[in-house]
């Protein structure tokens, strides 16, 4: 009798609750194990083998894949192009998104309509829009070069010249990301208390630029850092536009990491080598997350 009372008065870890907890997490845990944890660990393991699809056996070859990576001109170019792509897309779409957010926030007319227009690329099928861009940028029949011809400029062969292909893909990347960043900045801007602007004006910040410099920019700091890192992690995953428009060409001028991984793995079926490229990709993503948490932690003390 007293025992029964005792167990009831220490309800912290009842057997029933524990059982319910396990039952309710079990489906997710099993799916997590099968679809995420096991295959991720298998990718890491594969990177140290010479496994090819259809091959009778696989051998552990230690770091040989990574040694080959260092010698591989294609992978070096893919890495360089990915970094370049991120280095163009991230700043352009972050600053563009901020500028658009400030423009929209500066008045009340047309807010929802403009926001919707700039956000449209985020929800549009990337493959279909890539096809639209292919037409838009077509060297002879494309409207862009037709417009350039009309003012006497011979437009380049945007997507098939190795000089312009990466910048063209990056422009598409900016177009895809700018609306997303705009929405994040709008959320950050509405969180800034209105009184601060009035106070700054009283203190002599009469020009819009001064109010931006003294109030908006510092208070938007955490949002900006967040937008920068999220854009970088989105940009580093560039795949669709490359797969549809250039397949990494011409002459690897638009080869990027994920497309190199896809080609090695699913065109040449060199799964071990492809896994090694995947790990390079994962390392970059993890480095960006690490950077994000580091910068966020440091900023909180100042802002």
């Amino acid at each position: 009798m007293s025992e029964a009372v005792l167990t009831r008065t220490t309800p912290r870890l009842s057997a029933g609750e524990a059982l319910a907890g396990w039952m309710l997490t079990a489906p997710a845990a099993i799916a997590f194990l099968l679809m995420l944890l096991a295959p991720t660990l298998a990718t890491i393991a594969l990177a140290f083998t010479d496994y090819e699809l259809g091959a009778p056996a696989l051998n552990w070859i230690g770091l040989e894949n990574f040694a080959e990576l260092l010698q591989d001109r294609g992978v070096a170019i893919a890495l360089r192009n990915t970094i370049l792509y991120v280095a163009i897309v991230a700043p352009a779409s972050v600053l563009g998104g901020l500028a658009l957010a400030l423009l929209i926030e500066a008045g009340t007319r047309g807010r929802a309509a403009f926001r919707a227009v700039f956000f449209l690329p985020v929800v549009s099928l990337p493959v279909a829009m890539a096809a639209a861009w292919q037409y838009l940028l077509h060297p002879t029949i494309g409207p862009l070069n037709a417009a350039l011809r009309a003012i006497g400029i011979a437009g380049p062969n945007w997507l098939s010249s190795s000089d312009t292909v990466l910048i063209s893909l990056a422009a598409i990347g900016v177009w895809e990301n700018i609306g997303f960043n705009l929405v994040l900045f709008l959320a950050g801007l509405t969180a800034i208390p209105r009184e601060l602007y009035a106070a700054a004006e009283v203190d002599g910040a009469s020009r819009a630029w001064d109010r931006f410099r003294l109030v908006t920019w510092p208070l938007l700091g955490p949002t900006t850092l967040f937008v920068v890192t999220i854009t970088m992690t989105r940009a580093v995953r560039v795949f669709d536009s490359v797969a549809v428009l250039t397949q990494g060409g011409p002459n690897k001028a638009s080869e990027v990491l994920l497309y190199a991984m896809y080609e090695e793995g699913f065109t040449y079926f060199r799964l071990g080598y492809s896994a090694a490229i995947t790990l390079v990709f994962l390392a970059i993503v993890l480095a960006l997350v690490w950077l994000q948490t580091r910068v966020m932690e440091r900023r909180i003390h100042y802002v």
Partner: protein
Amino acid sequence: MSDRSILRDLPRLALLTLLGLLVLMPYIWMVAASLKPLDEIFRASLSLLPERFYAVENYGKVFAKVPVWRYLWNGVVVCGGILFFQLLFAVPAGYALAKLRFPGSGFAFGAVMLGLLVPYHVPALPLYVGFSQLGLLNSYTALIAPATISVFAIFLFRQFFKSLPDDLIHAARMDGLGEGEIVWRIVLPNAWPAATAFAIFSVVAHWNDLFWPLIIVNGTSYATPALGVLYFRSDEAGDDFGSLMAAAVLMTAPLVLAFLLAQRRFIEGIATTGLKG
């Protein structure tokens, strides 16, 4: 700010309109080309309107050459299936992690946080080998199964459920409801904002995804809209931009129309939910 006269607001509106038109250029030209015959497209005139209205032929060619409805249906099945299983797995797990005390819950939450760091491209190679060995390449199973576990959904629902009052759950227990019933009958109906936000995020992500379908699907029977456009582009269209643009319009339209009808929800869903995307 609101009392600003429209005259003073005009430069801002003009600039935004100009930039908006710039962003809309691909859509404008995509639709324009889908209405033109090929010879007009090849003349590369800067006129948006067709001289000869050719939409029936362009769109007709798409419907005649490719199984448009099949692609759209596959998109619906795949997105619906993925969302169904994501909710089926993530809602109970999110509830358990938010409201129940059980040994291993800390470990499970750690696994969720770790899972958030891994892009879905990373497990793709072994998953491909696994599905290929099971003979499941080219199937709804292979398209849906890898996405059924969303650690992000578990994380999102856990955060949301934490803010639900404990009294609500205690009251349900007093009424004799089991934990499973509490999840689906009490907790989920109270979590509609989080559930719709996640649903929009998930559907947009998987309708638009190319990477995984490209790996796992071969041929038209299980092709999603993204693959459909890709196939049409390489097989049928060639230089026929008129019908290619018609195909692009058809496959983009469903999500874009849904977005235009429910802008606020879409933007909230993708921007609040997409933060971790």
